[in-house]
Every structure is written in C-alpha cells, then in structure tokens.
C-alpha cells in the first residue's frame, strides 16, 4: 500500500516520517516533491571501479543554472532530509523532468527503512538540459512494509549533501 498525501502529512505530524524542511504545497496526491540542492559531484576517473574509492570533484550549480550535456552523469542531492522508521520511501522523477529526458536515479529508487538524510540524485541526461538549484526535480512516495522492521545502519546513514559511491567498503563480501 502506498500512502496518500493526507496520510503523508499525518505521519509527518506524528513524526513517523521525516521531511525537513516540510512545505505543505510540495504534497501531491501520492507523494511529496523534492527540490534540488546546489552542491553536486562529478567523478574525475576515466573508468569508475566499484572496488576502489573513485576520485571526484564537488561543485556548485550556479543560480543561472548548469547545462547538463547529453549523456553526462552527476550526483546531486535533495534540499530535504527524508526518511521513515515505519514506511519504505521510493524516489521518482517528477513527470515534467522525465519528459525532458532527465533521469534522477539510476535504477536505485528504493530507500531502506530507517535511513534518514538528503537523497543523492543520480542525474543522467538523455538530452541537453539546464538544471537550477531549488527546482522541484523529484518526488518521494511512502509504502507500507510487511514484517518485523530492522532499521538501516548502513554506510550512507545520516547523509548530508550528495554522497559518492562507497561500494569499495563492502566489495568482496
């Protein structure tokens, strides 16, 4: 089951859902809209390798916007801190953003229950597109789990800003 906006608001008020800052006008029928923060990350490796710590640069999206060229890939982050110890969040693009050919995640839409923090957007452009800080770029929905809950304690817990891959920490497991 997916939560409606009324239930999202209610569970936010009951502190079963974290959305900080919360703005009632970001609620949609089944989701809450997420905005893009100004910090982004770009890898500087010719070949990224999940076995190692990949080098990257951290930059700012100017107020005048950043042109993402077709086929480019960067990591951005949500302004909002999101999470829940009771529901499973799933990240989606805003339909208006998808219609411009921008992915906001690369097949990793599922957030672990108990994970709270800024969402790292995996931005992949299928055509040239200009992005702006503060724009509404994604949305988060909340889903009811079945079974006993074990909260997330993984390597991205309490994320602030975009976080590069930490795959090397668990490689070989």
């Amino acid at each position, binding site marked *: 089951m997916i939560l409606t906006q009324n239930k999202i608001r209610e569970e936010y008020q009951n502190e079963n859902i974290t959305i900080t800052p919360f703005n009632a006008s970001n609620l949609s029928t089944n989701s809450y809209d997420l905005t893009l923060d100004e910090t982004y990350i770009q890898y500087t490796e010719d070949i990224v390798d999940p*076995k190692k710590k990949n080098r990257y640069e951290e930059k700012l999206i100017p107020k005048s916007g950043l042109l993402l060229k077709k*086929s480019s890939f960067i990591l951005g982050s949500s302004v909002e801190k999101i999470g829940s110890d009771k529901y499973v969040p799933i990240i989606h693009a805003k339909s208006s953003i998808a219609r411009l050919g921008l992915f906001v995640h690369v097949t*990793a839409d599922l957030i672990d229950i108990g994970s709270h923090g800024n969402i*790292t957007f995996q931005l*992949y452009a299928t055509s040239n597109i200009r992005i702006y800080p503060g724009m509404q770029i994604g949305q988060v929905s909340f889903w009811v789990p*079945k*079974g006993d809950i074990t909260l997330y304690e993984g390597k991205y817990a309490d994320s602030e800003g975009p976080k590069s891959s930490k795959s090397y920490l668990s490689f070989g497991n």
Partner: protein
Amino acid sequence: MILTGDQIRKELKRGKIKIDPFNANQVNPNSYNYRLGKKLIDVERDKKIVIPEEGFVIRPHTPYLGSTKEQLGSDTYAMSLIGRSSMGRLGLFLQISADLGHTGSSHCWTLELVATQPIRIYPNMQIGQISFWENKGRIEKYSKGYSLHSRPTKSKIHNDTYTK
C-alpha cells in the same frame, strides 16, 4: 505491501520465496542484494563475454545483458529487481525501466546493464537488489516468454504479433 528483510527470511524458510544460493548478510531492511553472474552479451556487437575475475570494462551508453547469479522467484509475491544505490551512484543501470518480476517466475534473471560512464564490473559482485511485494487478487502464474531462462536472454519481441 513490501516485505521487510526479516519477512523475506521468514518466507524463504517457509518456501514461499526462492533465493538460491542464499546468504544472510545480503539481506537489507527491505530487499535482498543479488550478485552478477559471469556471462554477458554485448547487444550492439552481438558478442558473448565471460567476465574474468579481474573485471571487465563496459562501454557507456550501450546495453549489455547479464544475469543474476542467484535463482530468484516466488509463487506468492511479485518482485522488483533494481540496482543497488552504490552502483546507481557510479552511474550503472541494472534494468531499462522493466523492473517488474511476475509472480510464478523463478530463475536467474536477465539484467539490462547500461553504464553512463565507463565502469569496471566483476563476476559475483553484489550489484543489485530484489524486493518482494504482496499481491491483491487471485494469482494467475506467469508461464510465458522468459520464465524458463536462466542465461542472459535476448529480447523475443520479434515473436510477438504486430497489428496495424
């Protein structure tokens, strides 16, 4: 409803979910991490590849077909196969907007890998995750198309009937 990690473990024990081989430390709060099998197909060049232990670099913006190492399935739950966040953060797609696994399917799953930048991949690495979802309604088991295949399997859309 999406199953929690604890519920995935319970349903596995009850035989309602198949994960073979199963490794308890691949269970997440609401999913299970699957591994990458050795075989790969470069779709554009129609070439079969066995990924060596030292890894294989895939070209960006072009599809490869891989498969899960594990047999995954359920006659009770629907499934969703996606990437791990650690791989998404490296710009690797594990499927091309076809994440839904039908109830009744049980096999090694074909993965559609697309890299947004050159990336080295390794056999047996934990590359994606599968979640399990409760059904509502009477179940008609999936028995078509790809359900019997455990190797990376190319599209069979040419077998479909086209109407004008």
